[in-house]
């Protein structure tokens, strides 16, 4: 199995999730994160104290899928999350050795 970890723009989340369902993805986990990258942040000024906030709000999606699905999932996320503007985010794929569904104890493929 593969863990597909994608960092995307927050407003794309719902769209991405909807794009994954038809592929057979039944679950995923989302985290609010802050991203630093080429996309410039904003300068905030509080009574003369300037803070360049280089961190921008992003959303991280983690979804574990069977090996054979990984490419399709990456593709789907990439297509849906793309706006073409800087800061669209990244997708990383990691190998997962084991998976387990807590409720049933099912493992690996059937745990997803």
């Amino acid at each position, binding site marked *: 199995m593969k863990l597909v970890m994608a960092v995307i723009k927050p407003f794309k989340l719902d769209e991405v999730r909807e794009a994954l369902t038809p592929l057979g993805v039944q679950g995923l986990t989302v985290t609010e994160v802050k991203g630093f990258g080429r996309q410039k942040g*904003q300068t*905030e000024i509080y009574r003369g104290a300037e803070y360049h906030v280089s961190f921008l709000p992003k959303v991280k999606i983690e979804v574990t899928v069977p090996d054979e699905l990984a490419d399709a999932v990456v593709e789907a996320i990439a297509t849906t999350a793309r706006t073409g503007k800087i800061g669209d985010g990244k997708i990383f794929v990691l190998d997962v050795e084991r998976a387990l569904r807590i409720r049933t104890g099912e493992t690996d493929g059937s745990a997803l």
Partner: protein
Amino acid sequence: MTGKDLTTVKRIFARCGLAAATLMLAAMPAMAEDAKVDTGDAAWMLTSTALVLMMTVPGVALFYAGMVRKKNVLATMMQSFFITALVTVIWMVAGYSIAFGEGGTYSAYVGDFSKVLLSGLSENWDKPFTLGTGDGAVAFTIPESVFLMFQMTFAIITAALITGAVADRMKFSALVMFVTLWSLLVYSPIAHWVWHPNGWLFGLGALDFAGGTVVHINAGVAGLVAAIVLGKRVGYGTENMAPFNLGLAVIGASLLWVGWFGFNAGSAGSSGGGRAGMAMLVTQIAAGGAVLSWTFAEWMIKGKPSVLGAISGAVAGLVAITPAAGFVLPGAALIIGLVAGLAGLWGATALKHALGYDDSLDAFGVHGICGIVGALLVGFLSYGPLSATTAAPDGSPGGMEQFIKQCIAVGATIVFTAVATFIILKITDVVIGLRVSEEEEREGLDVTMHGERIN
């Protein structure tokens, strides 16, 4: 001022805001040089002024900020807060004069520049104030400084209410320009129509105790026009626009409720007699009734009674009782409240969806619709003795005749504010541009307009 003049005053004045003042007249010595401010009335009007200011900051600021997404919370608060300052200065410079100046040839429609920069206030600053002159004069037991401060807080909140319709997408600079023009060219004239003895709606005898037309219909319709001109928010209907922190909205609605006692009972112009007390009581009952009807209706229709529904219901009831507060009995107030709760729910859901505009926080759906409901219902439900005077012992009992006057007042306000607001928006659009860029909207106004964010 002769006895007959006084009688005339009483008859007319009893029909509109700050009406209780007339009840005092009977008890007062002739309006001689040495008239004194009534300390009790002054105490209540000073208090009411503080309460109405609290309705805007932090009331409206929180009510609205609690309903937007996280990225726009501060910008939304900023709109109400800045408007408070802006309209304060506008009112002092010219707004008060346009609204409450005597006026010249067109004195039925607009005041004049005689009170620009509050000129004239340094005389008689410690004496009771008489609004207008001659036959139409209305005598108060409080000084002009208090009268104009109380009125200022109404001018402020009216402008602030509009921001609910344009939340999340209007440029701050455009808002500043728009409010400046709107306050002078729309708010002040309508206030003159309704609350100055020379105003044509005042003369007509339309009932508007505390601002159903001037404040709520006015702000609601202006908001509707602005929402339509600005267009829908990016992602409206597809993205999740759930409120970030309804807790703020609950605080805001609560302070609106409390402050509304100043708004309505303060519009009695006096703590004495019984009008302020009755106004406060019916305000409470209407608010309570509307919370119940909105909540129970939503419970039946949607399956759950929501907090947002309850607080929206409170505002709906408070809006609807505003034009009626000094004129109706508790039973009528309960009816107004129950109807307002349902009307507000309809306005903020069915109507909005049917017509398809994006009135972000339902400035029209709640203030516009319920303002109209209240202004019309008082035509039927007003209780004569509450507005009675020695000259007109029957007061203005509800009935078809009164209802028609109400329709005229409501209609005139809607048409004028709709047209004038549209023109001002178009001018602002040409000069500054009304709307932020899509990217700024996505990123949120907090950071893009004001360089700040909440964490």
